């Protein structure tokens, strides 16, 4: 490959939530042109006029190389080299279908969506491959609280793909002096890790809501990762991915940050608020709610022992209170600490 190929390339970012916007800003440090697709025209105008994202990141200045657009035609005009996909899970299939005809097939497609398609349990990379004629797909996942990265605090992430060139593209496009991009090949493991940790984050919110302290959180994280491994390997992922940035790394960040939406759902539940009230206050959904339900169905079918995931789901559907759930978890029979496989 020609040297600096990626440093001279045009990047499209699909979706301008906070994470999409931050990824666009990272890419703009390395690439001459970054086009961000946003759903509604108004946001496009606002972003282009203010050079910031008034809704999600009002205090962050956008790189001058970024241009916001609202139609795919113009985003893909003249060809782009890499597409960074940062839409919520539930919007992925529909948008992919709309965007399909604009892809030429030589692009590298990286998605940063943490979640899976509900019901079908399909991973986002599978959804994209089913809808878009673009085989070179990868995933970006890790402990990446958008706001921290936007303000230049150090962080790292994983780009996983079965294609080495996709990993290289992710590293070339997104690496900065404050942001490290590690590579991997276990797409399944990385995608499931990023999805499953949201459920653990909800439980972590409980602990803080009841003021149960740091030992309890450490217990939750360690036991939660055991369950994530059990689920993730049943889905075909590799155990090791759960020990890396996308697994342990992301769980710790999400379970300890009050910025995480899933954590705030848990916190609200522990404070006795109803799920509807919490979601209204959040102004958006939290992926962990849907994930808890789909995983629950799966773990029952496969008879997987995942007590934390089970309790989170039962609290979310109103079957248990947070206190009851914690009581039940504390009275689970104990066995080997590490018995993941």
């Amino acid at each position: 490959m020609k040297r600096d190929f990626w440093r001279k390339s045009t990047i499209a970012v699909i979706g301008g939530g906070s994470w999409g916007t931050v990824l666009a800003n990272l890419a703009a440090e390395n690439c001459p042109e970054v086009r961000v697709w946003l759903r509604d025209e108004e946001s496009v105008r606002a972003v282009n006029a203010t050079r910031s994202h008034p809704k999600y990141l009002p205090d962050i200045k956008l790189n001058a190389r970024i241009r916001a657009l609202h139609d795919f035609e113009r985003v893909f005009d003249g060809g782009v080299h890499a597409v960074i996909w940062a839409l919520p899970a539930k919007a992925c299939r529909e948008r992919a279908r709309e965007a399909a005809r604009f892809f030429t097939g030589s692009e590298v497609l990286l998605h940063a969506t943490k979640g899976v398609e509900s019901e079908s349990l399909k991973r986002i990379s599978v959804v994209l491959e089913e809808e878009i004629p673009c085989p070179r797909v990868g995933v970006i996942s890790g402990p990446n609280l958008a706001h921290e990265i936007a303000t230049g605090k150090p962080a790292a992430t994983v780009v996983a793909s079965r294609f080495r060139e996709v990993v290289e593209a992710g590293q070339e496009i997104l690496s900065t002096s404050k942001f490290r991009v590690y590579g991997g090949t276990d797409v399944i493991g990385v995608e499931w890790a990023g999805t499953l940790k949201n459920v653990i984050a909800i439980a972590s919110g409980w602990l803080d809501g009841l003021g149960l302290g740091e030992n309890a959180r450490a217990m939750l994280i360690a036991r939660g990762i055991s369950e994530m491994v059990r689920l993730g390997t049943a889905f075909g992922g590799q155990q090791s991915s759960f020990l890396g940035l996308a697994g342990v790394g992301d769980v710790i960040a999400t379970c300890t940050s009050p910025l995480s939406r899933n954590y705030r759902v848990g916190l609200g539940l522990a404070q006795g608020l109803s799920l509807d009230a919490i979601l209204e206050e959040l102004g958006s959904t939290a992926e962990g709610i849907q994930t808890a339900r789909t995983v629950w169905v799966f773990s029952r079918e496969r008879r997987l022992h995942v007590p934390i995931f089970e309790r989170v789901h039962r609290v979310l559907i109103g079957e248990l209170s947070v206190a009851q759930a914690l009581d039940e978890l504390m009275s689970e029979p104990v066995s080997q600490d590490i018995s993941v496989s």
Partner: protein
Amino acid sequence: MHTIRATEEPVNRKTGSHPAIRFEQGPIPRGPLHDLNAQLPDILKDVVSRSFAEVKPDSHEWLLSEAYYQERTRIRREAKGGLAALPTAPRRMRDRALWGKVQSGLRRNSAEADRGELTRAVIKHYAHEIGGHFNPSIYWVATRLVPYGFSWLLNAASVRRFLPWGMTESLASRLRIVGQIPHLQKLARKGTILLVPTHQSNVDSLLIGYIIYLMGLPPFAYGAGLNLFSNPLLGFFMSNLGAYTVDRQKGNPIYKAALKNYSTRILEQGIHSIFFPGGGRSRDGALEYKPKLGLLGTGLQAQIHNLQAGKQKPNVYVVPMVTSYHFVLEAKSLVEQYLEQLGQHRYGGPTPSEESLPLARTAKFFWNLFGSQTGITARIGRPLDIFGNFVDEEGRSIGPNGTSIDPQRWLTTGGELRTDLQRDQEYTHRLGRKLVERYYRENTVLSSHLVAFSFFSALRRKYPELDLFRFLRLTRPQRSLRTDAFMEEAARLHRAVLDLAKQGRLHLSEELMTENTEAWVKDGISHLGLLHDASIVKIQDGAVWTEDMNLLYYYRNRLSGYGISFLSSTDRPRAPGELDEKGFLA
């Protein structure tokens, strides 16, 4: 010249009392293979230079010693005569001469004996062994003779007086060619075809050659196992109809490179080719679930080279084909090999022997095949591009959502059209996965398959706790069932496969398109493994039993991988080729 009707219908449905007349004798259409003789020197030269270029300069010593070590072992084994895969005498002489030279070369230091030159000599030797025996004059005769020979066999074997078992079925019921025939015929003019059939029997290659002829396509090149060349009759057919030799005994990297480069090079030449992606015949009787990707990947390389060279018809199309037989003559030795390898000490059966194919046996085989084998079905599957996408009749790759795919785009990396080892491996993986899926979907289930599957399933219900090897050793009285228990299971599984057929997950032969369980069961039993010494499923006096559990397992496995197998616990779904917790193919 005959052509095949452009429909989804079987090719030769309607026949008169003398079926072979249906197959008019047409000349074999000219294809690029006809010119192989003129191009062979160039091709072999390219193969040598490409393979040589792939060797890293500092690895000659290591590669040569590895090759030498393996070859010495092989030659010794052959000298003992234990193997059927004996090369012919002149080939053996050349073998010895070469490895003698390599041996003495490796003993001297590299200043005296240039390692590069030795490697080149080895590659050259291999290249000639693989493709260097094409003989245009024999080819000329063979291409004119073979269709007549086949027709004669079909004719003669269908005459009642020669058949002690009194079979008088028309040819139509013996060989059904169905599926995407016109599509394949069209694509053969738009690019290079890579036909990838399932592989059950040594007879496949000849049958497929004949089917290609019936479809009006020019002869295909094909990589045949060296053991087939040791049989004079088969060897004659093969080496002169575009077959090149593949010796699976030779696993060293130099040989593999030469083989791949030969295959790539003839595909670039526009010579349609056949690979068996299963690697060899199915040992367990199941459809292919673990494709070998080495040769499969040469299609992609050929297409990349073609695109780079700006050729007019650069595309290589991958066409799956699934043949279904009621009986496979080699079934017994195949399944014994499978079981011995799987079970080792737990397999208590006889040591399997690799059956040789002497002339008389081969002749008998064909006689049996055409005389009594009924209902061979060959389904031409939906053609794919080299990445596993479907292609339309114009040869364009179809993507999701009505998009069309430009292969050149998929092969562009870092802004340029090029090969990329890791990317291409991944594409070939993708193709392999897609092929397995297609094999299961393009499979035609015959009545005999479902009979074997049903009986096996009903028997397992009786002994759910037994693992595979204990189950296969059931005693005679133990391996019988009341007829109604069997019939009930047969009806249930029949409904299950009808459902699968409705979902497009497999095809059913005509005999199975009935509501009448007894009718298809009777048909199935009468055909199942017809020429084996043992009855595989037998109904008598209100009981059903089998005389050979291993063969029953072999034929039953054809329907494994569809999620309809009996499982003693259902903890998770199984992919094709996976074993259940008791060791049975799920």
